[in-house]
């Protein structure tokens, strides 16, 4: 391959005898040894037969400079601003033309670029922020697969960083955007492998796209929270691609079923964590065993805090157990239920606290489960009674209101459990249990009232019936008296 390229460069550098026309522009400029002509020798365009005039206009066959670079006959000079992209697009957006050069690639790069975040106007207001040449260079353009290309996987990070790593430059466009993506990237698994020459790991364009780069806040962006898992999965779910690295490929499936995945992908809650929220984005790496709770704790702060103070913290660290993950899993974290605590599966406590080895922990788990169970049962009973009273047409909005505090205690108890302290749990649960008992009594009173109304009606109906009978007999009596008279 390299040999062929060198040969081609040699062949083209020296005009071939018998070639029907000679590129006079290149000939003169080569003698000047200027940069454009030096680079253009290896340019893919020249290799496909496009001369300087293809972009700059003018007459490449004219011997005299005045004729070759005559503006009257179509010499365009050095294009500026959007004109640059305009020159490229003349061919690159024309499918037929590209085919004639043997390319079946895409022809929508300019359209994508215009819609991308780079399609904004630059500070001058006269041109777009990014032209084709910004990333691809003007002369010496080679295939993206060529290691000399600025957009080759091993080079693209530096190309992007030439602007994105420059605080003074980035301040012009998005002062809040960090400029440390490349250093961070170099700490990531992707970045370290990339630095070692692995072209299959993710670089900037793998996640952000190339021509169609959009802001991470743009819902169409490949790194918008709800799109991000699919973007990561495009490589990480590919078993062929992942084979050399020996890592699993089921993370996306697990995540999609998890409480986080459902929130993010089904409910489209952008606040739910995507891959990067736990693994980092540019500095992507799996969180460390001892720091899992800190990572989860960015959102689940109270749980993490309680856990870190609990006796489990030291026990987990000693045994090198990942903190939250040991009980909750990682990608496939499902919505928790109270059944996670206790002695029988799906409860997780007995995984370590076997009744024989660690009986204290085992009984503590059982009694904590019992506290929560009694709270749940009391809440259910109270709720059922309130509903029954409501169905009977009784007014129980007060009790409905009070049910909130029971529910709150139940939710709080699920947080408090992470302290693994029975007394603390009891304290939280007691509030809810007391409230549930009150509601129970009041709802029962409402139901009793319902029956009282019916009994009351029965009694008064009986009384009225007796009175009616009495009156009837009385009327009969006075009327028979009247007749007797």
């Amino acid at each position: 391959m390299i040999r062929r390229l060198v040969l081609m460069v040699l062949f083209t550098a020296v005009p071939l005898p018998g070639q029907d026309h000679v590129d006079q522009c290149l000939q003169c400029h080569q003698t000047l040894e200027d940069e454009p002509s030096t680079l253009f020798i290896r340019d893919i365009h020249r290799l496909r037969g496009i001369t300087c005039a293809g972009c700059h206009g003018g007459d490449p066959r004219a011997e005299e400079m005045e004729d070759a670079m005559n503006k009257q006959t179509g010499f365009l000079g050095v294009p500026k601003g959007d004109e640059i992209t305009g020159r490229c697009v003349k061919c690159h957006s024309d499918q037929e033309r590209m085919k004639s050069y043997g390319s079946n690639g895409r022809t929508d790069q300019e359209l994508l670029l215009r819609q991308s975040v780079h399609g904004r106007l630059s500070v001058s207001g006269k041109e777009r922020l990014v032209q084709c040449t910004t990333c691809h260079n003007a002369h010496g353009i080679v295939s993206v697969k060529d290691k000399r290309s600025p957009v080759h996987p091993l080079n693209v990070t530096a190309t992007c960083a030439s602007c994105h790593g420059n605080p003074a430059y980035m301040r012009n466009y998005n002062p809040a955007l960090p400029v440390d993506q490349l250093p961070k990237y170099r700490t990531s698994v992707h970045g370290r492998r990339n630095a070692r020459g692995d072209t299959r790991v993710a670089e900037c364009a793998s996640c952000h796209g190339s021509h169609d780069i959009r802001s991470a806040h743009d819902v169409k962006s490949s790194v918008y929270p709800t799109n991000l898992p699919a973007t990561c999965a495009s490589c990480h779910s590919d078993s062929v691609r992942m084979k050399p690295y020996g890592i699993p490929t089921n993370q996306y499936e697990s995540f999609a079923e998890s409480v986080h995945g459902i929130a993010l992908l089904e409910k489209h809650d952008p606040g739910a964590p995507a891959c990067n929220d736990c693994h980092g984005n540019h500095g992507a790496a799996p969180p460390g065993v001892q720091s899992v709770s800190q990572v989860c704790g960015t959102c689940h702060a109270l749980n993490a805090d309680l856990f870190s103070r609990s006796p489990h913290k030291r026990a987990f660290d000693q045994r090198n157990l990942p903190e939250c993950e040991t009980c909750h899993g990682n990608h496939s974290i499902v919505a928790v239920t109270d059944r996670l605590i206790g002695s029988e599966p799906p409860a997780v406590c007995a995984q370590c606290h076997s009744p024989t080895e660690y009986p204290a922990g085992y009984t503590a788990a059982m009694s904590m489960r019992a506290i929560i169970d009694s709270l749940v049962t009391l809440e259910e009973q109270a709720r059922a009674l309130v509903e029954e009273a409501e169905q009977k047409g009784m007014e129980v909005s007060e009790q409905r209101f009070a049910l909130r505090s029971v529910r709150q205690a139940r939710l709080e108890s699920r947080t408090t459990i992470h302290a693994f302290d029975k007394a603390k749990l009891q304290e939280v649960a007691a509030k809810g249990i007391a409230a549930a008992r009150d509601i129970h009594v009041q709802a029962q009173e409402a139901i009793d009232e319902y029956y009282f109304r019916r009994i009351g009606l029965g009694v008064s109906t009986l009384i009225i019936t007796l009175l009616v009978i009495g009156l009837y007999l009385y009327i009969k009596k006075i009327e028979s008296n009247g007749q007797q008279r």
Partner: protein
Amino acid sequence: MMNFLRQTYIWLDERLQLRDLVDFLGKKYVPVHRHSVWYYFGGVSLFLFLVQVVTGILLLLYYKGSEELAFESIQFIMSRVQFGWLIRSIHSWAANLFILAALIHMFSVFFEKAYRKPRELTWVTGMLMLFVGFGFGFSGYLLPWNELAFFATKVGTDIAGVVPVIGKPLLEFLRGGPEVTGATLSRFFGFHVAVFPGIFTILLGIHLLLVQRQGMSEPLGLEKNPSLEQKRMPFFPNFLLRDLLLWLMVLNLLAILAVFFPWELGQKADPFAPAPAGIKPEWYFMFMFQTLKLLPAHVLFVDGEVLGISLFGLAGILWLLVPFWDRRSARGEQNRFVNYLGLFATLYIILFTILGYLS
């Protein structure tokens, strides 16, 4: 005990000449014939009105007639006040039964031509009381300030706004502004607990006085046929006791309805919410509502609604003045035209009410 009662009676009699009253009532007789049963509906209407007065006053103890508190105060009455549910349900049920009893009373009087001379004024006061009764119903319907009532009032006052010439001022007068708002509620509350009871009481006084003075009317046929043996019964105590007996049964019926079919409160009115499906007026307005709905938009260059309302107005006036144009009955002759007219009105009301509930 009996002695004490007797002495009290004597004490009162010495000052008020109660004996005259008892004698008068004792000499008053109620005719007994196969149509006698209709006589009781006047009494039932009176009883239901008294129930309304009592329960209405009780409701006033806790009801708050403002946009913010009306709904909540009824909710409060129904849930927190002892027997509040009973009082409120009885008030609502008795209101409907009152209109029903009054309508039956009115039609029975109409068909028996009991309005004929000399009882024209009794008829007129009775009809006016029925109209005030409709007013009671319409104004009382809004007072819980729930969704259905809110929109029914909106529609009802809208219809009043179509009345030719005075429509717009009338609508604004009823609503207390261009829209149904808290101002409407205040107004309706005032009508319901002050204006209408006042008018009604005066009319009722005249009505009862006239009934007592003139006695019960007898159907035309009986009067003309002296050969038939006329049965009669003393008003006091025989008829009055029967009245009481029936009243007790009605009271029991009210209690049963209140316990088994408590009057619903629904959702609080929200002026900005879209109108719920199936807004229906109270059943006794249904035939008019349905007629206006079925009328085409334009009948011979006249707006359909305007025409409907004008016709109903005319019919009402005609009905009110029947003793004055039905000369034949006044002379004691049969008047088939009036019979057919009454039959037509009855059938029309029944048919359109049914249609209204079916649609």
